[in-house]
């Protein structure tokens, strides 16, 4: 337990350092990319005087390091500034849009793990047989096209030609669910409105599946490769020689050690979905943070850009932290290695 705490403390410290580095980098990049934020915010018809006033108000006429000083001072108070696009505090925007994206990627993550890992196990167990070939081809298809292509294909197949799923949005307009957590699936359950829960679930299936498809393929391929490698280890041969059933060997002896490298990659995939979700969100009109991130980048909304990137970076770091802890839990050598130091 002490070793895990030590591992956690080390990782948290490193994560905070990374986050500070990201904030400096994003702050600088956002100001270097072409385009005057004040001009963009005020629109093409604004006069030079209007632009000058807004630049002054936003401290854009000060050197970058002084601007960063203002940013850090406000951040310490939990204030990320006001978005020039929505005219609201960036923290309000993030609080409104983040749950929609998190809900989407959590469901996509469930698809990724719930479908990808079993497919990989099946493929490894029936290596070289028809099932293996079918899964390998399907996995390859999954990883070879980006999520937004799958989004369009799935929309065409299952919303246009075969109208089984809705095209856009998080829930039908007939339902009004009081916002408690921002996660519609959770809020509808809290309101005991199961029809709304079903409706929200119905809306999330296609976008989450489109987002998860490449991850499913990746998970299946990695799990298969790792399990095949594990199957060749002497302890598997020993288990077989004891006469253990194949199911038990696959589940207890082959899968667990094979999971460690897959878990590392899946953890990264999971966090990367937060950034990659924007095209899927755009296609399914999903009002999430990734789409907001792209909108504010195009409008050079400095406060919102920095806020969004920091949140996505934090999510990335948290996902890595969780994966590190899971690996430490699964692999005693890492736990004990940490302790022996």
């Amino acid at each position: 337990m002490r070793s895990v705490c030590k591992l956690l403390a080390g990782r948290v410290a490193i994560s905070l350092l990374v986050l500070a580095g990201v904030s400096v980098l994003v702050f600088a990049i956002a100001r270097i990319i072409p385009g005057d934020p004040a001009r963009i915010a005020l629109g093409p018809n604004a006069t030079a005087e209007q632009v000058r006033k807004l630049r002054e108000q936003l401290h854009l006429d000060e050197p970058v390091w002084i601007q960063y000083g203002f940013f850090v001072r406000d951040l310490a108070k939990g204030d990320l500034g006001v978005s020039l696009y929505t005219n609201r505090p960036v923290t309000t925007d993030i609080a409104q849009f983040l749950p929609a994206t998190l809900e989407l990627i959590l469901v996509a993550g469930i698809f990724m793990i719930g479908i990808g890992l079993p497919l990989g196990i099946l493929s490894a167990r029936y290596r070289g047989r028809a099932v293996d070939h079918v899964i390998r081809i399907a996995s390859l298809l999954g990883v070879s096209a980006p999520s937004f292509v799958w989004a369009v294909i799935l929309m065409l197949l299952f919303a246009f030609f075969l109208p089984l799923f809705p095209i856009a949005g998080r829930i039908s307009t007939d339902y009004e669910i009081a916002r408690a957590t921002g996660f519609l699936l959770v809020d509808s359950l809290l309101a005991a409105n199961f029809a709304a829960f079903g409706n929200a679930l119905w809306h999330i299936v296609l976008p989450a599946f489109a987002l998860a498809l490449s991850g499913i393929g990746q998970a299946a391929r990695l799990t298969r490769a790792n399990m095949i490698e594990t199957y060749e280890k002497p302890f598997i041969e020993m288990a077989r020689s004891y006469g253990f059933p194949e199911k038990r060997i696959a589940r207890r002896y082959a899968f667990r050690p094979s999971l460690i490298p897959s878990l590392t990659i899946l953890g990264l995939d999971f966090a990367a979905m937060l950034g990659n979700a924007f095209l899927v969100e755009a296609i399914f009109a999903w009002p999430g943070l990734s789409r907001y991130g792209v909108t504010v980048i195009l409008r050079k909304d400095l406060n919102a850009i920095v806020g969004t990137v920091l949140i996505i970076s934090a999510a990335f770091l948290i996902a890595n932290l969780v994966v590190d802890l899971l690996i430490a839990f699964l692999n005693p050598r890492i736990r004990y290695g940490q302790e022996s130091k």
Partner: protein
Amino acid sequence: MMTSILKASMAGMALAALATAASAGGTLRLDEVAVGGPDPAKAADYSDSSLIFNVYDTLILPRQGGPGHVPHLAESWEGEGTSFTFNLRPDVSFHSGNPLTADDVVFSFERTVGLGQGLSYLFGLVDSVEAIDADTVRFNLAQPNAPFVASLVRLPIVDKKLVMENLGDGEGDMKDWGQAFLSANGAGTGAYIVKSHNPQEETVMLRNDNYFLGVPEKAPDTVRLRYGLEAATVRTLIAQGEHDISSQWLPPEVKKALADDGMQLLTESGTGAFYFKMNTTRAPLDDVHCRMALSNVFDYGSVLKLIAITDTVSGGSPSTGAIPVGMFGANPADEVLVRDIEAAKAHLAACRYDPAEFTVEISWIAEVPLEERLALLMQANLAEIGVNSTIQKVPWALFTEMVSKPENTPNLSQIFVTAVTGDPDTLLYGMYHSTSAGTWQSPEYLNDAEVDSLLDAGRTGASESDRQEAYAALNARLMDLTASIYGFDRQSVFAASPRVSVPALSDPAMAFGLDGMGFAFRLMEIE
């Protein structure tokens, strides 16, 4: 428990699938680019203007089907020169129930100018606004300004009492001028009331049953203005009967496909044009003969084919000169510009630069894919007279910075410009007056005393005939100077479901002649 939830969820999913197509009712669903917030003092582009025109009212409105303006919140007005007095209707209430008074007009003006955003620059010549009594308000101008009355279509009247009750943090008496409140709420008298606003998703508006002009029964009960939908999504939604009107930004191929599927195409025109703007400060286009060579070689006929959506509907109409057809000073609609290769060659021969020794840069705005095709057309046209050219893709944000210095401004910049009030002053002054040079509208860097003087004459003209005369002379002068190539007069095209009827976007006699106002939901009918 889990089994019950699962069963209920599955039932919910099934019911939802069945209900989708039938749930439209009196709801109008349309899309636009994202609108940050419905604050009337910040509205400047097409999407937020069309939203504001429905939630707020203005003292006057553009006359439908013709030039001029008609009273709206004002019962009547009088004045000329530097003083204009408006008598307000006595029967108007805001959505909050507060009655409209002259104080609200004064407050709306002060808020617009105080925030200094959106189209506030239109009121730069207004010295003061005073409430004479509860129903009378007077605008005092610093100098005569003929476009002033037209600019009032861009002064939405805000509920002062409601805004003052909802001031947010800020400095001074007016704190934030109610910006935080108005970024998510409405405070107008309009035919529709903001129910909710999510800048990433949609604004939902409900019919205002207490609207002072009444809202016809067939007008939509609810309007859902959706934001940032992808072309593929809009195409699928309209085809499935889940969307009613597309934005004008839908690619022409998609609009054509929808028209082929039986959808109608709606149009709005008359306030803007497409230009190739020539940088008159850099070689070789600092020579008028070189500019005229380019203007004559451009294929005005082919560009119309490029922007055509169907055989009868197009993204523009033929240009007749520097001023779009329908505005003061425009040439007649049948005097269209045509290509003249021989004249182009003659002008090129008279140009002091050798075409073998220069290359013309043609820029196009990265966010407007159509402009790439137009750049390629221009490049092919130039090649026909032996002029080399390069094509530059420039993001909008970068373009606005590039054009701030003449040495960084491309030889040819492609731009769509629209008159924000429908008056030619708001189209031409910003493009061609020497004091306006160096903005996205004026990459020509034109500096001509006669043009300046004619623009000032158009701005201060005492009567419509004076203004007509000034703008006609300006049109001729601009054609002589050839600082721009006038590609076509712009027309916005929208794909719409047959279940909606939009006279202001389909019948020229009902059109407002102001971008975005055709989307007055109260004038629409929905099945």
